[in-house]
């Protein structure tokens, strides 16, 4: 019998807010332990939570980005369980009335469950809650850092629409890209800004009933999720094939050993005793508030890619670059609209501009005195030339006013000095020579100076022509029109 996996993901994402969920403490990673804390996020006696409006906005914004419904009524509930890193011993979360629900994510994926290389995973809900503190265990005791306690955390719950480890991986990447580009979260894995719980079961292909749900808790990398599923799915299938009855349980992923281990079964599952938090009023956003959130919706990465391919006839590869690098994409679009040949503009932006920026950045990083914390220290904003200069450069090439190799020189110069391409062409005398008289003279010189390639060509080795062409270009200092050079050389050698 063939078996298939049924996978649903619960993805926790820290929101990009200045302050915490219920108090004014900074939402900041990497501070000294217990420095971003106050009576509220420490759960001292008598304190009360005050909701962070921006966190509510980012949750509803996520709803829009994930094609969700935005209910006109949401509320916060208390989820009770004891843990040392949880100051109140209950977590404030949204239990049965989340801020947003019923959406989907679409992404590129080739495999089972996809059509035309695309897949859709439905989103059950995205709700707002608070993060907990962090425990560190030492030899004889444990330490607690509450800087993270009360940081706004959004949980995005998917339907069990995922059928493989690879699909889970692609879904998570697509989700991350949407959240990062939507300005909802930085989704920095290193900083623990994204964590995942994986629900996976197996069933015979063709059946509808779900198998025993097994949850793998607290995954902190997408590749970890993929590896854990690559281990867990065959484990379950083999167990079922042996006739073993799987039971609903929670497992832990051991990243070093590359295996999952059982933590607890359904019998000792928590009873969280949810009830509405009486310290907080329900959130009943009005139309104006919702509209102001909606105005922050950006184009989704996948939609953007499709549009770039459609509107500018870009190949998928180029569109993919602009999908993941939004800034570069915006730069491109800013000038491509006026370009006759947007593909040529894309080539310059991707192959030359992006590469040159990366080079400069690398160079700056190895300079002494470089400050590691200043990431993004050289980018599009720091360019000395205006975006229109790229367009001008492309036009010069297109109209054959300069050759490709001359264009490279022009680009290097305008990158360094910010001078306009026309000025550089003029100053350096790079205008392409299409004067046949001048080119004929260079050709004669080249033929006279290179008897060997001439002999080779005449003996039938046509490739020898390239060597002669190169000599002519050299003599013309790169300015000769290469097409004309070829024509004239051929004529002279054949005669």
């Amino acid at each position, binding site marked *: 019998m063939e078996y298939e996996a049924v996978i649903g993901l619960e993805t926790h994402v820290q929101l990009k807010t200045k302050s915490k969920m219920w108090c004014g403490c900074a939402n900041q990673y990497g501070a000294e332990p217990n420095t971003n804390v106050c009576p509220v996020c420490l*759960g*001292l*006696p*008598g304190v*009360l939570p005050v909701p962070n409006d921006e966190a509510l906005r980012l949750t509803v914004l996520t709803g829009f980005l994930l094609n969700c419904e935005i209910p006109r009524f949401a509320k916060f509930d208390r989820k009770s369980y*004891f843990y040392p890193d949880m100051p*109140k011993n209950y977590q404030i979360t949204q239990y049965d009335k989340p801020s947003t629900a019923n959406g989907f994510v679409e992404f590129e994926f080739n495999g089972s469950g996809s059509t035309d290389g695309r897949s859709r995973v439905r989103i059950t809900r995205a709700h707002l809650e608070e993060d907990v503190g962090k425990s560190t265990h030492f030899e004889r005791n444990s330490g607690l850092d509450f800087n993270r306690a009360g940081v706004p955390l959004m949980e995005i719950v998917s339907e069990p629409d995922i059928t493989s480890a690879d699909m889970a991986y692609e879904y998570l990447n697509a989700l991350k890209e949407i959240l990062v580009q939507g300005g909802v979260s930085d989704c920095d894995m290193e900083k623990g800004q994204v964590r995942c719980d994986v629900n996976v079961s197996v069933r015979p292909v063709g059946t509808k009933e779900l198998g025993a749900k097994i949850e793998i808790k607290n995954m902190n990398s997408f590749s970890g999720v993929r590896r854990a599923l690559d281990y867990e799915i065959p484990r379950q299938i083999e167990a079922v094939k042996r006739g073993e009855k799987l039971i609903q349980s929670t497992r832990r992923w051991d990243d070093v050993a590359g295996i999952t281990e059982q933590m607890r079964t359904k019998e000792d599952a928590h*009873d969280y*005793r949810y009830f509405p938090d009486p310290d907080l009023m329900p959130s009943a956003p009005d139309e104006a508030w919702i509209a102001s959130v909606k105005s922050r919706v950006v184009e989704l990465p996948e939609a953007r890619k499709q549009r770039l391919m459609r509107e500018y006839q870009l190949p998928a590869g180029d569109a993919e670059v602009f999908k993941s690098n939004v800034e570069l994409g915006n730069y491109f679009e800013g000038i491509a609209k006026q370009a006759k040949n947007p593909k040529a503009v894309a080539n310059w932006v991707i192959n030359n501009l992006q590469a040159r920026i990366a080079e400069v950045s690398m160079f700056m990083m190895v300079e002494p005195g470089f400050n590691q914390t200043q990431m993004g220290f050289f980018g599009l904003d720091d360019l000395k030339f205006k975006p229109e200069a790229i367009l001008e450069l492309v036009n010069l090439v297109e109209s054959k006013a300069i050759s490709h190799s001359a264009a490279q020189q022009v680009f290097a110069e305008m990158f360094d000095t910010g001078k306009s391409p026309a000025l550089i062409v003029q100053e350096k005398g790079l205008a392409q020579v299409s004067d046949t008289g001048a080119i004929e003279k260079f050709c004669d010189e080249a033929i006279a100076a290179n008897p060997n390639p001439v002999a080779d060509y005449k003996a039938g080795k046509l490739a020898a022509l390239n060597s002669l062409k190169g000599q002519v270009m050299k003599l013309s200092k790169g300015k000769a029109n290469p097409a004309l050079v070829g024509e004239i050389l051929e004529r002279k050698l054949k005669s």
Partner: protein
Amino acid sequence: MLNQLTISELTAKLAKREVSSRAATQACLDQIARVDGQVHAFLNHDAADALAQADAADKAIAAGATHAQQPLLGVPIAVKDVIAVKGQPLTCGSKILGKFISPYDATVTEKLRAAGAIVFGRLNMDEFAMGSSTENSAFGVTRNPWDTARIPGGSSGGSAAAVAADECIATLGSDTGGSVRQPAANCGCVGLKPTYGRVSRYGLVAFASSLDQIGPLTKDVRDAATMLKVISGHDQRDSTSLPEAVPDFSASLGHSIKGMKLGLPKEYMIGGLDPEVKLAVEAAVAQLTKLGAEIVEISLPHTDYAVATYYIIATAEASANLARFDGIRYGARVDGADPIELYSKTRGAGFGAEVKRRIILGTYVLSSGYHDAYYLRAQKVRTLIRQDFLKAFEQVDAIVAPTTPTAAFKIGEKSEDPLQLYLGDIFTLSCNLAGICGISVPCGFTKSPKLPIGLQLLGRPMGEATLLRVAHAYEQGTGWHQEKSPLARG
């Protein structure tokens, strides 16, 4: 004896520079030294700090500060040990908080300070405000200044006894199901429970968040109006506080109540009502009629369900509110081999029997499988109870009722029977479930022994001005509030 004065009497003398705040504060400290060994209203107080605050107030008065700007300038006010005062102990009458010192001020504390009050002393209470006799304090029972063999009521027993024994001018308590009004009735003072959301709860250690309100205990109705004005107002730190404007409550005093309609709920004249209490309340009703009010019989049909509803909702909320007392970050800790053992030992040793009973009750009613039958159902009944009141207020301006079914009972008399104690809250807890306001004013005494009886007035949401006006009119026609307890007399 300056400690015997009301707020209005003391501030008049302070304004005229007849007396100093230092002298008034010293008088309170002297009275505490003289009688608190018998009353035990105070858990602790910092005399030097109180006098330093008094000196600062005297300086301010000398520099021209007025009571129009600062209505409590130079007035010694003590607070229940459940309200945070920066730098002072905050134990909630519980061992579990250990030597906890609050690092911040409650909003009401800030408001008292801004109004110029001398904020001093921590007043005894039932542990975490759970109880109606102050017998549940981990630090000893408070005694009723009218008869030290009897309870002062609770949970704000210390707040009521301190006022009744003239140990300070006025106090703050908290009222979740009657914890301000009931001890006020038992001790013969005025106790006001504001409308839910009128006073910020920031800095009030939560018992049941949807029911808790801070309220004043005072020697007369005018003082209650003054205190309420000071502590009321919207607070951004409390999402449940209401953005309503705060009226000048004192301005509503002294107006006739002629033509006002007052409702008498037929469900409140129950079998368990003590005959002397019944007589006193009937006499009060007659007095109100004499003052020109029209008495109308009304019905609050869901009254029978109030006690059950209250003890489900209050305990459910408490079970989560008290989860933070775990010995991890602050308070007392009993170590264990792992966190679970540490929690069990710490909470086992730190909480008293009544608190444990309520945490267990609350945990039970929220448990999977019972949640709908208890918690959800109770929420629905709560809505019906609120509707009862709102419907009644379409007919009447205020409701008249007893505050308690009996006068103060003897210490230890009911401590073995929690259900009996819970039933004693029958007249007060509907007010919290409905989120409306209520006040208890003295309306007579039992004969032998002589113990105070309280008259309760209940008002519309945000209807404190009307409530105070009726209470004041009643008070002016009687002398009950002027009678002093034996301990106050000295």
